[in-house]
């Protein structure tokens, strides 16, 4: 008996009971749809997290953080020096396993240009190393020179969102402003813009922009109203918005022009707001950090008021979240498929009970037990696979709906792996659900089956 005929007869059997088969398949449809939808959602989440991760400086970035001194050093708390430029120099000399040490001194800044103002996500004094640490790329103009640093020149490099706020968005103006050489006020001090970063965006947003650029605008009517400013939660995700709102000034400028003058109490604050490190070799992260710790214990007079925060911890926690989401989603979808399988088994049992005489006839005219067994299994698998295919269609709709509900940067991504797994799993469920009914049908005695009323 060839398989084609078996499948043909199986499908015929399903088609003969359309409504019943549809109801039976529904469990599988839901199971597959939820499995694919769930995995798409998690994939989207994962993509969003990974992109944000890179936007924040990549996996090998280590932050040197301050922490309250440990209890046994409590009496030395007032002597804790915090992060200073001394640490940076010491680390550069004394910790060769570190590739980059980048100091940052942040300014609580407000940018103005005429009537326009901008509240940047960060306005920091930096060295060139920060470009590498924070993965910034300069698209226009230049970065700071040694002379800018030494003379504490009032120059700055801005992100595109700062340009948008102070000079206007390209979407509104119709052309892109490249404000190199323009002067803006940082906390009422005039600064010359010498460079601008590229526009950072998620892959999703990049794709959308590309589409928007290539497709001509349909009509002007929808553009007539005032443009609505999208907040941080909008397109591209907060990590990208934040990165685009960066203002860099030379470190020395930050110190001389803002910090040295003192805060509102008139006390100059030489502490750095951030020291970022990158190691040569991710494999030797532990050793490198130990080395850095040893150096810092010297500059900090043995006071442990610092700690290292690696992105690894964050990646770990992201991975953990994804694993958990996958596991719980998988369990839910699995239960749904299981219930679907029980439905199939139930209907197959009912179906063979109805067809006992038919099975008896088939056996009388020469079907072996194995052929009957395969027939029932094929019917059960056909039910589950047709259900799974319907489930894939349903998952398409489900994912579209989820895409509307979820933030753009995390928009769900349907992976073929998930689809294949879902269909394969349903087929497996179909086989398992068919086993018992098939065995029952195959072991029917033809005499009993023919006599059955």
């Amino acid at each position, binding site marked *: *008996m060839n398989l084609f005929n078996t499948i043909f*007869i199986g499908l015929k059997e399903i088609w003969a009971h359309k409504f019943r088969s549809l109801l039976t398949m529904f469990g599988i449809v839901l199971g597959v749809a939820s499995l694919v939808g769930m995995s798409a959602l998690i994939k989207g989440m994962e993509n969003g997290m990974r992109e944000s991760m890179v936007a924040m400086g990549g996996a090998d970035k280590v932050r040197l953080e301050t922490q309250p001194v440990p209890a046994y050093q409590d009496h030395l708390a007032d002597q804790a020096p915090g992060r200073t430029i001394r640490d940076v120099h010491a680390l550069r000399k004394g910790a060769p396993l570190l590739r980059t040490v980048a100091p940052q001194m942040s300014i609580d800044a407000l940018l103005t240009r005429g009537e326009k103002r901008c509240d940047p996500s960060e306005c920091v004094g930096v060295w060139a190393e920060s470009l590498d640490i924070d993965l910034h790329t300069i698209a226009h103009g230049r970065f700071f020179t040694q002379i800018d640093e030494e003379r504490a020149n009032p120059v700055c490099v801005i992100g595109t969102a700062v340009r948008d706020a102070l000079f206007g968005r390209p979407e509104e103006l119709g052309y892109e402003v490249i404000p190199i050489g323009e002067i803006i006020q940082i906390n009422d001090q005039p600064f010359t813009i010498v460079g601008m970063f590229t526009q950072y965006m998620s892959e999703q947003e990049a794709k959308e922009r590309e589409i928007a650029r290539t497709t001509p605008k349909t009509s002007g009517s929808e553009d007539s109203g005032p443009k609505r400013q999208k907040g941080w939660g909008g397109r591209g995700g907060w990590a990208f918005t934040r990165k685009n709102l960066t203002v860099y000034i030379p470190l020395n400028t930050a110190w001389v022009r803002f910090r040295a003058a003192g805060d509102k109490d008139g006390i100059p604050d030489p502490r750095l707001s951030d020291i970022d490190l990158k190691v040569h070799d991710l494999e030797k992260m532990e050793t490198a950090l130990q080395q850095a710790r040893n150096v810092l214990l010297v500059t900090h007079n043995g006071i442990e008021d610092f700690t290292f925060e690696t992105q690894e911890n964050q990646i770990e926690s992201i991975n953990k979240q994804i694993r958990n989401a996958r596991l719980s989603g998988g369990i839910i979808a699995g239960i749904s498929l299981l219930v679907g399988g029980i439905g199939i088994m139930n209907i197959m049992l009912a179906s063979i009970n109805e067809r006992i005489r038919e099975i008896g*006839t088939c056996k*009388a005219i*020469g*079907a*072996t037990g194995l052929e009957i067994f395969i027939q029932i299994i094929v019917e059960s698998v056909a039910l589950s696979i047709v259900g799974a295919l319907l489930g894939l269609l349903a998952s398409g709709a489900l994912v579209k709906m989820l895409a509307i509900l979820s933030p753009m940067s995390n928009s769900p991504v349907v992976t073929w792996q998930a689809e294949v797994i879902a269909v394969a799993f349903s087929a497996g469920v179909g086989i398992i659900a068919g086993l018992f009914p098939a065995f029952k049908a195959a072991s029917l005695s033809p005499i009993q089956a023919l006599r059955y009323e």
Partner: protein
Amino acid sequence: MALLELRNVSKIYHTGGEEIRALDDVTLDLHQGDFISIIGPSGSGKSTLMHVLGCLDSPTRGEVVLDGVDISKATTSQLARIRNRTIGFVFQSFNLLPKLNVLQNVELPMVYAGLGGKARHERAVKALEMVELGHRLKNRPNQLSGGQQQRVAIARALVNDPKIILADEPTGNLDTHTGEVILNLFRELSTQGRTVILVTHNPEIAAVTPRRIEIRNGKVAEKVDPRLAGFTPSTP
């Protein structure tokens, strides 16, 4: 040599500690081209004899020799293969598969025999033309009359060219006239050299066959009707 021999065949059932001898030491020879009826009241062991002859069941004791091969110890799937190739069944209630059309019903035994699609189609059409149903290939069984359904069933029984046709009350669900048509068809088949076995409880139907086997309490008594014996090529 006989086509099908039963040698001291017994079939014994045990129900509640009681021993029921459905077949009791039956010895029987069936030859090629025989037209035989098996007659007996219900409970006589008639069905059991039919099952053993039709290779649906194995005897408890004794030998069943088909074409010189003892099949009394064959496994169920070996029996299925034998049924498929050497025995054609015709049932009282036709037993056509309701979801398949006439052609597919007739093709089914060949599907189990592993024939290719083209050969199946040709042979099924030929068999259906033989029973004069060549024009109803695409109909469902429930669109046919009882007599037509039974002819489809006969076509199905014939399509693997079996040596034995086993018909269990083939006219039981048909009116007298249609019944006669069907019986004539069987007579024709036996003249073509097939062994046709009619199982019935009706003496009138049994009367059309030259050889009659009566069964009572598991024992057989054979009668040959001298008037009808000339109709069929009997024992060579």
